[in-house]
């Protein structure tokens, strides 16, 4: 893996954070400190995030769960530099890839071209691209659909192309916004394995948003529970289980149950607030 390390995108100092998780070479870290984000001004402003702090160690895998509308996508947008926080600092080390909640593929390009564009934009020489595209499409099991256009695919397949495109960026930090939401359970399980394999192989830092608590426990080192509007970190759970895990492991189910209870509390608290 070749990585070009770039300076920090945020304003915090780039002092090294402890590396956890395997494969730390060239990996990045995420730091969010007292970040607030409001949309609009004055009376009608929506406070999506309120003084949220969060840290993902270099090479770590953190999952973010929280009720719908609690600001998860907003946070990822801030981390990807697509938006600026109203208050506080975000810092992401190295190059960042963001996989949106929707596939956001370019409709005028074929599946292969969509993936290839990601390679082109990070200046991979033209000759090397086709082989890399093939490999990436193989990873998401879409090699046979290379020449189709996004509108010819099912929602789940589009999502997989987006995953391939995100992997193509070969970023130090991978932000994923409910990447497997549109998939059937079987495909999702297979892609969990793939994601875990790539994470072990490449050692990137991953922040993974999901509604599925089991999925969070299956994949992450740590699961953060966000409270609802305004979003804050309500609780964090370390996941101590050995890898590889399976989503149906009793350990996974057990911890997922515990986290779900906590998440429900948050949702209920939010519901009675209003």
């Amino acid at each position, binding site marked *: 893996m070749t990585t070009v390390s770039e300076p920090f995108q945020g304003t915090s100092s780039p002092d090294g954070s402890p590396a956890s998780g395997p494969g730390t070479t060239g990996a990045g870290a995420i730091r969010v400190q007292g970040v607030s984000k409001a949309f609009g001004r004055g009376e009608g402003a929506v406070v999506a995030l309120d003084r949220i702090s969060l840290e993902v160690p270099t090479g770590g895998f953190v999952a973010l769960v929280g009720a719908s509308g609690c600001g998860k996508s907003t946070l990822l*947008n801030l981390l*990807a*530099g*697509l938006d600026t926080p109203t208050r506080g600092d975000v810092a992401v080390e190295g*190059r*960042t*890839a*963001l996989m*949106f909640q*929707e596939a*956001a*593929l*370019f*409709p*005028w*390009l074929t599946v292969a071209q969509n993936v290839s*564009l*990601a390679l082109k*934009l*990070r200046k991979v020489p033209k000759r090397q691209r086709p082989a890399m595209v093939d490999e990436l499409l*193989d990873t998401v*099991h*879409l*090699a*046979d*659909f290379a020449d189709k*256009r*996004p*509108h*010819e*695919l*099912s929602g*789940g*397949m589009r999502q997989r192309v987006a995953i391939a*495109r995100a992997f193509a*960026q070969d970023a130090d930090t991978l932000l994923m916004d409910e990447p497997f939401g549109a998939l*059937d359970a*079987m*495909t999702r399980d*297979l892609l969990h*394995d793939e994601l*875990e*394999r790539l994470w*072990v192989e490449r050692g990137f830092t991953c922040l993974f948003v999901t509604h599925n608590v089991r999925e969070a426990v299956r994949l992450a080192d740590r699961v953060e529970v966000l409270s609802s509007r305004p979003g804050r970190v309500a609780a964090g759970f370390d996941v101590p289980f050995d*890898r*590889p895990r399976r989503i149906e492991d009793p350990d996974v189910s057990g911890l997922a149950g515990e986290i779900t209870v906590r998440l429900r509390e948050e949702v209920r608290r939010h519901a009675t607030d209003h």
Partner: protein
Amino acid sequence: MPPITEADEHQLDQELSGLDALELAPAPRAEWASRIWAATWPKLLAVAIALLLWQLVVWSGWKKPWQLPPPGPVFRALWDGLQNGTIWRGIGLTLRRAVYGYSLALVIGVAVGLLVARSRVLRSGVGSMITGLMTMPSIAWFPLAIVLLGGNESAIMFVVVLGAAPAIANGLIAGIDNVPPILVRAGRVLGARGTNLWRHVILPAAMPTFATGLKQGWAFAWRSLLAGELIVIVRGTPSLGAQLSNARDLREMELLIAIMIVILVIGILADSLVFGRIERYVRKRFGLVDAAGS
């Protein structure tokens, strides 16, 4: 991680392609010839009905035959005109002007469109002026054009460009304005900035609306051109417009209607064979048309 063997991978692939096969229903494919026939016969029927109505009006005796000739003699005049080459010469001349004027309008329209779309200051001022220009009937430009440029081909080209360029520019600007923000964000996340963002994301995403602008620009150009050829008769250039005007002066009603038919047919062909095709191609690439329909 358990080592994933190649056999496992293969099995995964098979399972997944099984699932994918379920997800993708096969597209129904109509027979080629029957599809063309299905597309053609309603048009043929419409033409037949129009001819019949025309003949009925003539038979009704509403106008004298020298005012409104029946279809038969008109098509004979058309045939003669095509045979002796005068109509072909007219078509050649008018089409050359059309291509020349439209190309000029394309260059200017794209340049202005890009400038306006990229600059916020220009947007508010020039943007609304462009829409204003589009509402201006092109014929209203001729007096000015003739005074400025003389009663020659330049005056005609001036009006053609003024007719078509705003529509083309407007298509480009609207296309750029309506690029889905999520695609721009996706481009930025992939590392496309500045020129790269324009080249790889914004301009391609603007294509469907731009294609509509191209088509609209053609309609404006064609109308302005014929209006111009009727108003500005350039000596020694028997364009379609000049021939039309000439036929009226000589009261050759058969020829007059024959030339009108030629003008109509050229307009329809250009629209469906060139601009409609571009538009359909772009829309199809974007998945904006139902693959099974039309």
